[in-house]
């Protein structure tokens, strides 16, 4: 058994318990709110990153907020679509898909990186790779993230399609469990190229990899609520999120989430039209 992991989980649980004690004091009989995540990172890492945020929200909205990490993207999408999650973290593509399938979910706030509420995907190769353009990936092995991942699959596939490279033109492609595996798959040489969120790439910029192509700018990840959530509560949550960067503890919460996240900002459905356009081209390929 991984002792370090157990120890870390125990610490987090205890921290969460003590952090929620004040909220619990005034929300005794109300069930906790569930903050759900898709497994775009390890569940452990996700807990580590978002526990401060959950504590922050609990304090702000007066109800306990629990973090839930789905087994996979499909599970998370289903749970979100079926309103099993009070608060759900979604990429732009899942948001669009869920909207198309289950109806639009109320938006709370979207991520802001370095002051911008957008981000992009990166297709990268090893530093010593001879490939210099996307079109040269024909006949190459390419690693993607989860098939339902916006930045590690849908957007990169769209980029390849825009460059004239269809999936069938590739020698091979694999949907790896997370972005880290994509980085490692290219670094180790199992794949000639890989696609990850630009945020992840930047975190691994010291590795033996280089950017082959950047994607168009896309609206960042978003928090939605279940359709049935109280409007007042929805507003309070959205307010709490957007006011985080102004909160005295906001910097710590943002730093815990990592990257160059600078805060959460208000969001609207049209921010994800590009996602709808991409999905229109990509989904038939990815989910024939």
């Amino acid at each position, binding site marked *: 058994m*991984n*002792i*370090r992991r157990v120890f870390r989980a125990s610490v987090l649980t205890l921290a969460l318990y003590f952090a929620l004690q004040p909220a619990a004091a005034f929300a005794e009989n109300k069930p906790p709110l569930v903050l759900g995540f898709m497994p775009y990172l*390890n569940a452990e890492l996700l807990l580590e990153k978002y526990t401060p945020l959950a504590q922050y929200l609990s304090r702000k909205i007066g109800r306990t907020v629990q973090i839930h990490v789905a087994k996979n993207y499909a599970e998370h999408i289903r749970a979100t679509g079926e309103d099993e999650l009070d608060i759900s973290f979604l990429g732009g593509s899942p948001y669009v898909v869920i909207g198309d399938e289950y109806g639009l979910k109320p938006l709370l706030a979207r991520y802001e990186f370095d002051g911008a509420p957008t981000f992009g995907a990166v297709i990268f190769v090893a530093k010593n790779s001879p490939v210099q353009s996307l079109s040269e990936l024909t006949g190459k092995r390419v*690693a993607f993230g989860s098939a339902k991942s916006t930045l590690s699959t849908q957007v990169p596939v769209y980029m390849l399609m825009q460059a004239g490279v269809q999936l069938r033109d590739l020698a091979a492609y*694999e949907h*790896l*469990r*997370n972005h*880290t*595996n994509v980085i*490692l*798959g290219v*670094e*180790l*040489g*199992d794949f000639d190229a890989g696609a990850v969120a630009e945020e992840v790439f930047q975190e691994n910029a010291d590795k*033996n990899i280089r950017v082959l192509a950047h994607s168009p700018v896309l609206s960042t990840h978003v928090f939605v609520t279940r359709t049935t959530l109280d409007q007042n509560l929805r507003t309070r949550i959205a307010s709490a999120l957007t006011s985080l960067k102004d909160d005295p503890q906001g910097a710590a919460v943002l730093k815990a989430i990592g990257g160059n996240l600078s805060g959460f900002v208000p969001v609207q459905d049209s921010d994800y039209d590009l996602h709808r356009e991409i999905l229109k081209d990509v989904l038939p390929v990815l989910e024939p």
Partner: protein
Amino acid sequence: MIQGLHRKNRQVFAAVIALLSVAISLASMYIYDQQKQQLHNSLSRKVVTELDLIGSVLTDAMLRHDYSEGRRLLADWPINHPDVVELTVLMDNGVTFFAYRNDQVDKASPSLTRDFRYAERTLSITLCHDATEVSTTLAQLSRNLLIASLAVMVLIGAALWFILFRWMIKPMEQEISRQTHELRKSHDHLEEQVLERTASLANEVEIRKRAEQSLRKLVRVVDQSPIMVFITDTEGIIEYVNPKFEQITGYSREEAIGANPSILKSPDTPREVHEDLWNTVLAGKEWRHEIKDLCKDGSDFWASVHITPIRDKNGDISHFASLHEDITERKQAELEIENARRAAELSDKAKTELLANMSHELRTPLNAIIGFAETMRHKVFGPLANPKYEEYADFIHSSGSHLLELINDILDVSAIEAGKLTLREETVDVTEICAATLEIIRPRAHEMHIELTGIDIPDLPLLRADPLRLKQIFINLLCNAVKFTPENGAVSCNAVLDQQGNMILSVMDNGIGMTSEELVKALDTFGQVDSSLSRKHEGTGLGLPLTKGLVELHGGEMEIASAPGKGTTVLLHFPSDRVLEVDSPQNQAV
């Protein structure tokens, strides 16, 4: 020998201990190497096992392209296995997938690297474990082995010492010592037996030699014997004759052997003698006789014959030994002696007759002479014409008496020597006889102023004796005492009974005495001691021999003690059977 064995045992023990030490050292080294090899192998197997496990799990993750899971597995591995010193995963393109190294470990096992394939890729996993525990274990093992080796050496040495010396060597030494002792005893015993046997053999040889010498001596004795010897078988056939046989009989050895002893048979020997001879010897008895043997030339000789049966080991008669001693000369001598004896008897008879005749023929005229001289001295028929006649008459009477006394003494001595004198024994009072005798002697003693003392013992027993002869004894002794005692001397008589009841009479004087030579001479017949004093008193010289004869005729003894100048004491011992109490029945009967 035991000390030498001890020294050898110690050398063997030291050699065994040395070999044992080398063996234990080699065994310890072998065990150490085996253990070391085993530990290293174990460690290597462990590393290989872990490598296999890591490889299988890692390749599985890599096949699923779950690199982060693979890396997490690798990162967790040293945490879960603190003994891992190095864990490195290198891809086939030179990319390091994972690297871990613990530089704080001093001792590390040799790194093992194994390649694993997944898809068409190859990755190399290098794993190295901490060997400090192995090194510590080996160091501990080395110390333990050293201690154990020393302990084992000491224990085995002690056990060997105990077993070798207490259980084996010591009993063996004791057994050897006992056996050596037994062997020595046996050897000594054997030597004793050999010595005894040698002595016995020497003794037997000596005995045999002596026997042979004795046999040779016997043969020589027989051969050179002055006695005629011949040996016959039980049938009487002669088998051996000695040279004396040939010499006496005239038969040669060849002539005699095989012949019958009858060749020696003399016609003078009665037939019954020969029948007795054969009956006796055939009965197994010896036969002795004096017979005449006949020689080859017809002459004969007297032989003292001694025939002895010779018996074999079973006691059966096998031969007869016949010894014939020529006694012809002895026979002749005996004949001569017999003739001489007869002559002596005739002579003695003549002497006795002579003495008887002399006693009668000499005494008759002598009594006439003494009687007539007595008549003349007493002038029975008137005074003598001339005084000279009186003197002559006295001289005739004195000489006649002396002659008669001499004749009587000679006759008595002769009678005693011839055993013709017979005692007329009766009970006598010695005191009275002594007193009577003193009265006879007293006039002569008075002349010489010699003091006479008789027997003065009132309770003196009576004596059975011939009173006349006892008186004669006293007269002889007292006369001699007075005769050889100077003037103013003293003569005394005495009588005592000794412890055996014998009566001892004594006549003692303090006269001239005698030397031992003179005493012997005085006891000889007619042997008077030559002295000036004796010459004054003529005597027959028969007094003492006659007295001694008379005492001995009474069964007594006469003893004389004398010293010149001091006197003479004569002791007469009469046996106790002659001593009688005054009131004894015998006395009364008498």
